[in-house]
C-alpha cells in the first residue's frame, strides 16, 4: 500500500477510445514528488521535442498534488500541464476547488490524456468505472452550466466537473478549464478543446491512507487553526476593500497608462457597496478555512466567482469601473477565458484600431462605447469570427498575423505570453530575473516568499525577521536586515531570493498546496503556515518517505531543472528571457545581462540557460544530459566545464 498517493494513473487515449489504470513506479514520488514534478517527467519521457501542441501526441495531464486527500488543509490545487500553442513551451496551470482530492479518492494520482476524439466527448470517472461518453449535446454550453448538466445527467450531485466553454471548443489560446468557480488558465483550455474533450466528471469514494496518522492529523489541525485565525494567509483582497495598490500602480488599457491617484474614498465606498449588495457569500476550496472566492450574482446575469486581481483586469483594460467587471466576468467564466490575458488582447485590438492598423472594416457592427466594444470582441474571440479568429491566437501571434506595424503593439509579452500590466520606473533586479527566467509564465506564479519591498526602519526590519519562521536559511534574514532601498541589493542576494521564491512554487505545485497559504503569500507579511521548515515533516508524516529540508530542496532543484530541460529541448534559449522592454522606464542592458549570466551560473546552467551535464548528473538527471548531448543542444562533456 502506498501512503498519500494512490500509486495509479489513469491513461486515456481519445483516438483509440481506451482507458487504462496503470500502476506508477514506486520511487517516482521520492524524486519528483507529484503534481507538476511528476508531470514534467512524463512530458520529458513521452512527448518528443518536435511535437506540435496540436498533435494527437501532445499530452494533457491533470495531476493531483502528492499530498491531496490527506488531512493537510489548503491542499487542493489541481495541476494541469501540456504544451501550449501560444508559447510552444510547457504550459503550467493550476485550479482550486475539489477536483484533485476527488480524483485521488477515485483512486488516481493523474489523468494522462493523449490522442484526439473524433467529436466532442466527456470523460466520466466513477472509481474503477471509467467511460468516454458522447458530449455533442453539451456543444456550446457554458463551463459551469456543463458541470450542472453533467451532475443532473449522471444523477450525482457529488460529481466534480472540470469543463471547457465555447472558447476551449474553438481552440482559443486564452481558453481556460473551469471547475465550479475556479479556473485553470495559461494555455490548457485550448488543448482540451483540441482533443475534443468537453469535460471530465469525477466521483471517488475510496480512502487515501497516510503513514503516520495521529501525528499528521495533529499537525494538520495545528496548521488549520493557524490559518483560520491569521491575516497572514489567504487572499486579503477578499476582505480589504482598499484596492488602491492595483488601481494606482498597475497600468490600464493595453498595459499602457498608469493612473496614480485614481483611488479615492468615494470610489471605495461605492464599489464596496456594489460588491456587498450583489455578493451571495465567500467560498473556500476543499478543506481550507480561508474563503478567498467572492461569489457574485448581478441581476439577470450568471452567478460567478472571482478572487484576487481577477476583480480588476477587465475594467482596467477598458478604462471602466468595477460594475463592468461584474457584468463581464460571469459571461467570460461561462465562455471559459482567462481574465488576465483576455482583457489585454481586447485592449490591444482597440489600440490597433485607434492607430489605424486595423480599421472599422475589421469590426463590422461594433458599438462605439468601451463597454459594448469589450463584449463585442469577447463574442468575436470565443467564436473565432472575423478579427476574433486572429485575436484568439493571443497578442503575440495576432500581432504577427496582422503585421503592418502591429508587432510594436505587442509590448507586454515575454516568451509570447501576456504579462501582468505593470510598468515601473527603476529596474528591480529580482523581478528582472523572475520575469526573464520564469517558466510558469506569470509573475504571480514565480514571486512570493521574500518581501517585495524593504521596511523603512531598522526596528521594523528586526521585528519582521524575529518572527520570520518561513526562511529556509538564516542568510535571508541578513539580506532583509541590510536591505534599505528596493534596487540596492547584492547580486548574490538577488540570486538567492529568486531561487527561494521559485522553490516554494515548484514545491507547492508538486504537493498541491495553495500559494495563498505558502509560496505567493510570504512576500506580504512573511507569516505563512507552510514553509521550508515544516513541509518536509508534512511529507514524511503523510507518505512515510524520509524527507528533510536539504532533500526537499534538491527535489525542487531536480523538478525545476527538468522543466527547464523540457523547454530547452523545445528551443527555449537566453534570447527569449527578456521581460517586456517597457516594464521599467530605466534599463541597463549591460547590467541585466551580467546579472542573468550570474543567475545561470548560480543555477548550474550554461551561458545560454541550458543545464550543464554536471548539474544534471548531480540531480540524478543524467538521462536528460544524454538526450541533450545526443540532440546537439549540449556540447559533449568536458571535465570541469560547469
Amino acid at each position, binding site marked *: 500500500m502506498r501512503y498519500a498517493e494512490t500509486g495509479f494513473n489513469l491513461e486515456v487515449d481519445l483516438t483509440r477510445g481506451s482507458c487504462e489504470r496503470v500502476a506508477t513506479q514506486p520511487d517516482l514520488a521520492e524524486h519528483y514528488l507529484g503534481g507538476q514534478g511528476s508531470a514534467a517527467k512524463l512530458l520529458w519521457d513521452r512527448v518528443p521535442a518536435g511535437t506540435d501542441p496540436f498533435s494527437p501526441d501532445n499530452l494533457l495531464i491533470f495531476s493531483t498534488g502528492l499530498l491531496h*486527500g*490527506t*488531512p493537510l*488543509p489548503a491542499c487542493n490545487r489541481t495541476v494541469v500541464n501540456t504544451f501550449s500553442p501560444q508559447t510552444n513551451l510547457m504550459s503550467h496551470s493550476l485550479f482550486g476547488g*475539489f477536483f484533485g482530492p476527488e480524483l485521488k*479518492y477515485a483512486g488516481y494520482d493523474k489523468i494522462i490524456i493523449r490522442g484526439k476524439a473524433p467529436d466532442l466527448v466527456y470523460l466520466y470517472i466513477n472509481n474503477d468505472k471509467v467511460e468516454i461518453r458522447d458530449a455533442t449535446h453539451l456543444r456550446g454550453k457554458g463551463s*459551469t*452550466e456543463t*458541470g*450542472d448538466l453533467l451532475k443532473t445527467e449522471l444523477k450525482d*450531485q*457529488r460529481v466534480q466537473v472540470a469543463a471547457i466553454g465555447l472558447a476551449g471548443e474553438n481552440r482559443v489560446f486564452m481558453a481556460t478549464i473551469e471547475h*465550479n*468557480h475556479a479556473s485553470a488558465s495559461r494555455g490548457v483550455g485550448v488543448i482540451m478543446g483540441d482533443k475534443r474533450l468537453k469535460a471530465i466528471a469525477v466521483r*471517488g*469514494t*475510496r*480512502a*487515501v*491512507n*497516510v503513514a503516520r*496518522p*495521529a501525528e*499528521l*492529523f495533529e499537525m494538520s*489541525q495545528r496548521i*488549520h487553526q493557524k*490559518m*483560520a485565525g491569521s491575516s497572514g494567509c489567504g487572499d486579503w483582497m477578499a476582505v480589504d476593500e482598499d484596492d488602491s495598490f492595483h488601481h494606482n500602480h498597475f497600468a490600464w488599457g493595453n498595459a499602457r497608462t498608469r493612473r496614480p491617484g485614481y483611488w479615492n474614498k468615494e470610489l471605495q465606498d461605492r464599489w464596496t457597496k456594489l460588491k456587498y449588495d450583489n455578493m*451571495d*457569500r*465567500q*467560498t*473556500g*476550496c*476543499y*478543506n*481550507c*478555512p480561508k*474563503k478567498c472566492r467572492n*461569489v457574485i*450574482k448581478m441581476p439577470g446575469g450568471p*452567478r460567478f*466567482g472571482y478572487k484576487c486581481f481577477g476583480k480588476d483586469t477587465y475594467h482596467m483594460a477598458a478604462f471602466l469601473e468595477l460594475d463592468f467587471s461584474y457584468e463581464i466576468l460571469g459571461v467570460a467564466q461561462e465562455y471559459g477565458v482567462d481574465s488576465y490575458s483576455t482583457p489585454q488582447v481586447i485592449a490591444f485590438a482597440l489600440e490597433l484600431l485607434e492607430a489605424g492598423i486595423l480599421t472599422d472594416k475589421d469590426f463590422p457592427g461594433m458599438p462605439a462605447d468601451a463597454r459594448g466594444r469589450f463584449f463585442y470582441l469577447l463574442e468575436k474571440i470565443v467564436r473565432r469570427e472575423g478579427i476574433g479568429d486572429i485575436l484568439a491566437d493571443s497578442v503575440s501571434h495576432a500581432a504577427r498575423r496582422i503585421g503592418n506595424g502591429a508587432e510594436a503593439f505587442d509590448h507586454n509579452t515575454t516568451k509570447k505570453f501576456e504579462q501582468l500590466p505593470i510598468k515601473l520606473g527603476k529596474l528591480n533586479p529580482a523581478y528582472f530575473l523572475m520575469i526573464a527566467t520564469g517558466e510558469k509564465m506569470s509573475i504571480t506564479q514565480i514571486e512570493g516568499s521574500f518581501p517585495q519591498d524593504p521596511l523603512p526602519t531598522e526596528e521594523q526590519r528586526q521585528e519582521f525577521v524575529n518572527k520570520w519562521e518561513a526562511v529556509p536559511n538564516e542568510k535571508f534574514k541578513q539580506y532583509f536586515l541590510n536591505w534599505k532601498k528596493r534596487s540596492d541589493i547584492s547580486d548574490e542576494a538577488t540570486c538567492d531570493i529568486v531561487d527561494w521564491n521559485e522553490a516554494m512554487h515548484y514545491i507547492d505545485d508538486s504537493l498541491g498546496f495553495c500559494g495563498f497559504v505558502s509560496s505567493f503569500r510570504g512576500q506580504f507579511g512573511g507569516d505563512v503556515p507552510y514553509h521550508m521548515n515544516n513541509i518536509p515533516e508534512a511529507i514524511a508524516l503523510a507518505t512515510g518517505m524520509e524527507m528533510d529540508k536539504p532533500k526537499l530542496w534538491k527535489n525542487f532543484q531536480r523538478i525545476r531543472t527538468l522543466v527547464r530541460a523540457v523547454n530547452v529541448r523545445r528551443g527555449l534559449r537566453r534570447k527569449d528571457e527578456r521581460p517586456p522592454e517597457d516594464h521599467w522606464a530605466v534599463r541597463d542592458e549591460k547590467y541585466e545581462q551580467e546579472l542573468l549570466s550570474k543567475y545561470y551560473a548560480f543555477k548550474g546552467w550554461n551561458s545560454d540557460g541550458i543545464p550543464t551535464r554536471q548539474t544534471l548528473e548531480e540531480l540524478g538527471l543524467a538521462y536528460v544530459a544524454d538526450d541533450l548531448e545526443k540532440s546537439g543542444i549540449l556540447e559533449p562533456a568536458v571535465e570541469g566545464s560547469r
Partner: protein
Amino acid sequence: MNPEMNTKTVQEILVDVDKCTGCRACEMACSAFHSNPKFSSINPAKARIRVVSNELTDEYVPVFAGNHTKSGCDGRHVYTIDGRTYSECSFCRASCPTRDYFIEPDSHLPLKCDMCESTPPLKQPWCVEVCGEGALVYSKREVKREEPSAAALGQIESGLQALMKQHGMEAVIARLKQIGREK
C-alpha cells in the same frame, strides 16, 4: 429526590447554512476520526456529515447522518427559502435506499452520526472543531425529564394490579417501601 434523575443531556449541532463556505473540512475530519486506526485514512464518502452544495444556486447545506430507513419516502421534498430553492431532499438526514449518501461505500451499511463519541469524551465533535466559520456550533445542555405520560401511568397501573392479584396488596406495598428506602 435526586435532581440528576430528573434531567437528561441533549447534544446539538446548530447549523447556520448562511455561514457555510462549502469547504467540506467537516467531511474530511469526520472520516478521519471514524477510520480505524483513528485518522489513518481519509474518505469523505465515509463521513457522517456531508455538505450538500451547488455553486450555481448558492446552496451550501451541511447535513449530518440520522437514522437509517428501510424504504424511501413516498414523496420527495424541495424547499424554497427566501427565494432560494434547495435541491431535492437536501435537508434530510436519513440514509435511505433511494440515495447512496450515508451508506458506507465498501460494506453498504448505513452510517450514523455518533457525535464523535469517545472515551474520554471530546470537547466537541470533529466537524464542529474544524468549522472555522461557525456554520456548525456544538451545544450541550441539560433538559428536564418529562413526567410519565398517561400511557405510561396506565401501564404502571395494570402491572401493579397484576402483582397485587398474585401476591396481595400488603406484600406489594411493603416491597415498594423497602425499595424506596434502599434508593
